């Protein structure tokens, strides 16, 4: 059966050790984590984890049930398959030789990014978007020379009915 990308949004008790319960569940059972993001929600006793994983259908069902079974997990939502917004931020440090500077600025502009740090030989770009957008940007910057990348991993939410 086909492995596909699944985005899970998980509400958990905001307590020490909860992240390691979830990470331990994934590693212990051999599930894959593409990315993981965690931070407090509006309710300070609840945190939201966004996990992107790859799995076939029976496995993603099992993964969701296993996560739900953890005592500190309040709710698991699968966003994939419904209408949702997904964003990820990346910081990308690129070589900025004089002959490339204009082109870099143009690309950054097209992708609605920002230059957040400038040196004689480099630019650091800040950009947010979906995984697809970041990949597209990276593929354009690659020939110019990427020195370093830091990505946050995806965060996501259901869209509200109109």
């Amino acid at each position, binding site marked *: 059966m086909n492995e596909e990308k699944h985005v899970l949004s998980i509400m958990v008790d905001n307590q020490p050790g909860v992240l390691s319960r979830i990470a331990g*569940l994934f590693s212990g059972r051999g599930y894959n984590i593409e990315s993981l993001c965690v931070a407090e929600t509006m309710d300070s006793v609840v945190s939201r984890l966004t996990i992107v994983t790859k799995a076939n259908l029976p496995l993603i069902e099992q993964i969701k*049930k296993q996560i739900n079974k953890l005592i500190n*997990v309040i709710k698991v939502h699968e966003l994939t398959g419904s209408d949702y917004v997904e964003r990820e931020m990346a910081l990308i440090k690129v070589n900025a030789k004089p002959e490339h500077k204009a082109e870099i600025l143009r690309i950054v502009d097209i992708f609605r990014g920002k230059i957040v740090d400038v040196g004689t030989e480099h630019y650091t770009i800040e950009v947010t978007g979906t995984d697809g957008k970041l990949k597209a940007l990276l593929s354009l910057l690659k020939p110019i020379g990427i020195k370093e990348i830091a990505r946050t991993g995806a965060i996501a939410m259901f869209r509200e009915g109109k």
Partner: protein
Amino acid sequence: MKLTGAQILMKMLKEEGVDTIFGYPGGAVIDIYDELSRTDFRHILVRHEQGAAHAADGYARASGKVGVCLVTSGPGATNAVTGIASAYIDSIPIVIITGQVPTHLIGNDAFQEVDIVGITRPCTKHNYLVSKIEDLGRIIREAFYIARSGRPGPVLIDIPKDVARGMLAFKVPKEEIRLKSYNPTYQPNMKQLQKVIKLIEKAESPMIFAGGGIILSGAAKELTEFARTTQIPVTASLMGLGGFPGSDPLWMGMLGMHGTYRANMATSVCDLMIAIGVRFDDRVTGKTDAFASQAKIVHVDIDPTSIRKNVPVSIPVVGDCKITLNALNELLKEADLSELAENRGKWLKQIQDWKRAAKLKYQHSDKVIKPQYVIEKLYELTKGEAIITTEVGQNQIWAAQYYHFDKPNHFITSGGLGVMGFGLPAAIGAQAACPDKLVVDVAGDGSIQMNIQEMATAIQHRLPVKVVILNNRYLGMVRQWQELFYDKRYSHTSMEFAPDFVKLAEAYGALGLRATKPEEVESVLREGLFSDRTVIMDFKVEPEESVYPMVPAGAPITEMLL
């Protein structure tokens, strides 16, 4: 009133109805032990912390209550881990209290510090580090609630020394426990149950596969009624033995790797399998593609993760076994079962034919003791009334095959983890829970040496458990695999160097008996079982006897070596 952490612990244990604690003291729990000396809990001092966890497990299974053990930090806690992992995979409710170094030293590699919460995260249902005394009362209540509710399991509470010594104005919490993130489903979906009834009405060759969930939810009576009303034959996992009477004509015996011919054959051709409180372990299914491949599978389980984990399921029912079976029994009163007797005739006859074709059997001998014969005699002499615990290996499977369990909570075995050394401490726990019962540990000569030190515990606390050693001078189950699949290369499975178990029993202050010939078996059993002392009976059995039927690992379960 101001109480210390240790006093709060004692008070809360009383509140939870605890009467017996299996434990071992040490620096990090010395304050708790000091307080314990001023209470009337029955404390059973084990000789190794692994024994404490297994004893709590045995106690829980025999009594249906939560078992409790108390151990110190560091090595005390790590010693208990095997017992915790065994209870976890077998879904047994125990609460483990571990001491921890004082909170200000945590993370400093302090003396006897280990991160036991980290270590046991994957083998507990839940665990807690109590970081402040204000949380202690609530955590203890939650721990017991989580351990016993839903799918039961072990819960560990790690109490730093300064929390145990701290002071707090304490009132026992009384309000209902509500955990927003934990809410097990007990009530089955009635629509699903209607579908199950429809399937039962139509099925030509249905069977029931019962498991540990039946024992855990106390549903043996309901299961028996259900099976008898619908005239559906029953098999069970190793963990489900006793959930349905072994003497009932509908009983097919255990299924799986060492299952009976008829149970495994029925599984492969049945058109409906009603699986209740089971988790389709690989020891049961063999090759999953070939398992019950003709059948619609109904799966009742309180834990959604058990469902569709290993086999596809037609009708999933999330709910408690007892409540679900009660509901089904109610629905059956309305169902059309008029042609049942007629419909089932052929199927039940087929099962009888399989039974005749390949009964559980072994080659009798009048020269050397056959291990199966010892279990048959044990069954006869105890009239099937004893609580049987087992070690792991051949001894365990012979006990399962030849002791015909009629009642639940009478077979206590480490099924999922298969821990050698489980049986003796588990027997101690069961005996502590049921002082009037005969409790017998069916052991191998290898396994018994893994926790033999608990003999001293049994003697000290006057727990007259009986150990029946099926002494084959081999790590028999491994030897059997070597015989069958590794051309008889018996690599390091000889146990020729072993103590004289009779003298060893005597050294501990127990009664030691030995049988070396078949004609001695009965008299040794009689003397040992009906003695009021702790006893070791050493049966020198056929060294190279093997367990049959056997399905090679990963093969379809119809491919039995008989």
